[in-house]
């Protein structure tokens, strides 16, 4: 049939959709089919710009036909093609639109999948945008009560943050992961998330935060009873004593090896920075009350 020139297909489809004197209503159905064929042909011919355009038009046609599912699928393909082209903001845009269309269908899982795909495409180049997409995907799943699926997304987002060296953000995401795990009673993932957060804080040399985090997490029953809790308390006490050897020994243990590998890498590089500074800090905290007593 019309497996010939995609250009011809495109022009034919365009003619079908343009409203002129002879044509009072656009024939979206056949136009959609033609657009799709043209787009595939362009993709095979590696003419990405035109393929992208064709996919976009196909998606619009499907929208007019009120089938958001197909529209979303075409949008995703358009996004993939845009990735080949390297138009990063277009990539994000396409994937977002695809996700919205999926939500229109009422299917949250594919929506978050679309965003995740977009995020993965953008990981290398525009990591901030990628993180945004990941968090949006996670919130979609959480709204729908499917937090189980969000674990991987959270972990990927945390990895990106760690790569960007934005440690507080990474720790925050890990805590959110812990919260999601709590909602679905995934105790093991929860404890691992909390331990990961503590390690990230320690790596960022934010001892106070790490302690605060540890105290917060200890209030959670499941964490309190876990191996990871014991490991965290041992680690923190080794830190307060400034015992480098002990810390090095602790991070070789198997509890750490069960965590995410980015976090393992951080842990093996502990202890960072100046332990004596930490000791001085914790020492200073104890001296201050004495000073106040002296004044009075």
């Amino acid at each position, binding site marked *: 049939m019309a497996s010939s020139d995609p250009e011809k297909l495109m022009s034919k489809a365009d003619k079908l959709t343009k409203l002129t004197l002879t044509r009072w209503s656009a024939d979206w159905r056949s136009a959609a089919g033609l657009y799709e064929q043209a787009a595939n042909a362009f993709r095979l011919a590696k003419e990405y710009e035109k393929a992208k355009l064709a996919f976009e038009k196909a998606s619009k046609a499907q929208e007019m036909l009120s089938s958001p599912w197909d529209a979303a699928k075409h949008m995703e393909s358009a996004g993939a093609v845009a990735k080949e082209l390297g138009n990063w903001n277009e990539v994000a845009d396409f994937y977002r639109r695809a996700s919205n269309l999926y939500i229109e269908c009422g299917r949250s899982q594919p929506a978050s999948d679309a965003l995740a795909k977009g995020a993965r495409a953008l990981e290398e180049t525009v990591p901030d945008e990628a993180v945004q997409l990941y968090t949006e995907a996670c919130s979609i799943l959480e709204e729908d009560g*499917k937090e*189980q*699926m969000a674990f991987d997304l959270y972990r990927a987002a945390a990895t990106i943050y760690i790569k960007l060296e934005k440690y507080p953000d990474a720790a925050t995401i890990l805590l959110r992961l812990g919260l999601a795990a709590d909602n*679905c*009673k*995934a*105790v*093991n*993932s929860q404890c691992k998330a909390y331990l990961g957060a503590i390690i990230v804080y320690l790596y960022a040399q934010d001892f106070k935060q790490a302690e605060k985090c540890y105290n917060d997490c200890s209030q959670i029953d499941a964490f309190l009873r876990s191996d990871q809790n014991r490991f965290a308390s041992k680690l923190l006490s080794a830190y307060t004593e400034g015992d480098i050897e002990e810390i090095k020994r602790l991070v070789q243990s*198997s*509890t750490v*090896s*069960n965590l995410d590998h980015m976090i393992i890498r951080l842990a093996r590089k502990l202890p960072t920075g100046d332990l004596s500074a930490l000791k001085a800090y914790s020492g200073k905290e104890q001296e201050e009350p004495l000073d106040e007593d002296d004044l009075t």
Partner: protein
Amino acid sequence: MSVIDILTRVDAICKKYDKYDIDKQNDSNVSGDDAFARLYGVVEADIEATLQKAEQASKEKNRASAVALNAEIRRTKAKLLEEVPKLQRLAFKKVKGLSSEEFVARNDLVQALPDRIQAIPDGSATAPKASGGWGASASRAEIRFDSDGRFDDEYFQQTEESNKFRQEFEMQKMKQDQGLDMIAEGLDTLKNMAHDMNEELDRQVPLVDEIDTKVDKAASDLKNTNVRLKKTVTQLRSSRNFCIDIILLCIILGIAAYLYK
């Protein structure tokens, strides 16, 4: 004559001439109707056997077999001690043909028996009266202290042997600790994997449920469609229409053939 007949005849002859068998007469003479003498003989024989066993046990090198033998000896002693009261009762019975001196002698023998039985060494002999302070523990005859209370300087000195033994013990303990550490690590990994598998399966459960419902729906749709299709096809295939179709087809073919001929 068959073998069985020979045997029976031999038995009968032996019984008839038993009274001429001197050895047997001697034996039965000794213990004839006398229950006491019989029982006494048995007890004597047992005591002899036990004494022999005790000798063997004391010569025994292997500690395990020595212990086993001693245990046997103790059991036999206990049994013999039980027999003694019976013997005493029998001793008091008057038996015909027994002189009064023998009667008294019998009583003495019976009295002497318990002491003889106790005196058989069974490896648990303490020096009961000698160790004064531990008199109370004499009742637990199996536990004994070799030194009998002499705790002088030499006693607590570590000999070479005990040093070596202690070293070996420490080394073995270390090796065991290492092995246990490795096992612990492996178990840790296993535990982690098991937990993760658990969570993964929990994740899959609602998905599988969804698949289940969708497949059920699809299956019922298919069934419906099949039924309808069957109805339609049977309607189409009804014989009358079919025959009419065939006839008309033949007519057309006939006309075409005629036209082309």
